[in-house]
């Protein structure tokens, strides 16, 4: 079972930005324990472009699809047997990243 694990940052009250070494060590552990599928940090939400080609003409919009105080700072994809296993990892990940974590199952 795979889960999308989103790292959420807050513009008003951002997490610390000295987390890289801790996150690397955490990633090593995810790999060693067989949970790691994918990980990636994201550029600032201001670098996003939204494409909408549902109408007559493709529309391009500068910026993220929804403006909000909180934004996606990075994602993992984890393999885990059930939600309890993921929640335990996510609890650690939140400390490691100093940010909120959202866990969402893939279909």
């Amino acid at each position, binding site marked *: *079972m795979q889960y999308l694990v989103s790292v959420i940052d807050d513009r008003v009250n951002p997490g610390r930005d000295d987390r890289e070494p801790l996150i690397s060590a955490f990633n090593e552990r995810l790999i060693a324990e067989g949970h790691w599928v994918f990980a990636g940090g994201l550029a600032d939400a201001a670098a996003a472009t939204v494409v909408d080609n549902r109408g007559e003409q493709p529309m391009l919009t500068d910026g993220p699809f929804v403006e909000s105080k909180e934004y996606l700072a990075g994602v993992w994809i984890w393999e885990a*047997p*059930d*939600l*309890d296993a993921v*929640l335990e990892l996510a609890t650690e990940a939140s400390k490691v990243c100093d940010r909120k974590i959202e*866990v*969402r*199952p893939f*279909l």
Partner: protein
Amino acid sequence: MSDAADDVTRAHRDEWARLVGSLTRRFGDLDVAEEAAAEAFATAVARWPVDGTPRNPAAWLTTTAQRKALDRLRRESKRDVRHQEALMLHDGAPEPRGAVDDDRLRLIFTCCHPALAMPSRVALTLRLVGGLTVPEIARAFLAQESAVGQRITRAKAKIKAARIPYRVPSPDDLPARVTGVLAVLYLVFNEGYLASGPESDPVRQDLTAEAIRLARLLHGLLPDDGEVTGLLALMLLTEARRAARVEGGALVTLDEQDRAAWDGALITEGHRLVRTRLAAAAAGTPPGRYQILAAINAVHTSARDARDTDWSQVVALYDQLARLDPSPVVALNRAIAVAELDGPEAALAIVDRLAPALDGYHPYHATRAELLRRLGRRDEARAAYDRAIDLTGNTAEKAALARRRDELR
């Protein structure tokens, strides 16, 4: 014929959770389990009065429900080959009898999972463990049936999609998860004990009874868990006073209740449970909050007359509780006991310090009103009663507070 109807009612009370639990383990799907269990009971309602009650109702219900579940899965599996394979794996597998109690525990922990919102946990537990129908749950919480139905459907969908596991938590996680289950049961009990709606009866006996039934079930499954024992004792000792709590539509405070109207059997049972925990505490296991609250209630229910209450014992127990839970609500309740031991002035000094935290909490104003009244500060007392009356939703409490206020005119 009515005997068969009683048999169905009894079987529903005794077997529902076991049935849903074992079906969930077997078919790996709460939805299938709930529907098959409900269909089995509907069949019992139709058949038992005609055919007679089966010799072993539990076995009859299990067989019938399994057949219903298999029928449904076979219908669905025509669209889904993987289901077919799952069926072949499970069909006809023997029931390990020893796992049955564990099934009910698994069910309880799944329904009370912390990844579900509290109202969902409550609705799901009452439906899947308690066997209440959606209309019954809606009535109990003055909610729309459609809203309750949707809440349960969404919770089941989340359990399935996010794969919330169907198992008893590991020993490391168990205490925290038990606390989560107890919070659900206590919420159900409290909503019955002090119903909050303006349209609602002040005491909802159906809810307190259901909460006690679930707490008994959990206590039977986890007999060595001190907090489970504590919560059951707390509920029993609270429920024991029910008949004396409301008179003429108004709440009667503990000191004015007719103690002869208390339920002696419940008090005896509650005291027995509290004693087992006192023994454990003496052996070095520190009590949690429910055990301390139960002990406080045991002190109250040990006094034949309100004047005989051992207030120093009550204050000592609240001191213990405050160390565990330094919240302003605990401090408020402690102050009520301090008023009896050291007088209203000492208590009011404590209560006034809680103003910033508890200004929106009606018991704060009700407590202040009583203390001010005892100190002869009548105008301030009346104003405090008014605030409490505005803030409470319980009809019997409003009536009692209004009567106290009007005595001060």
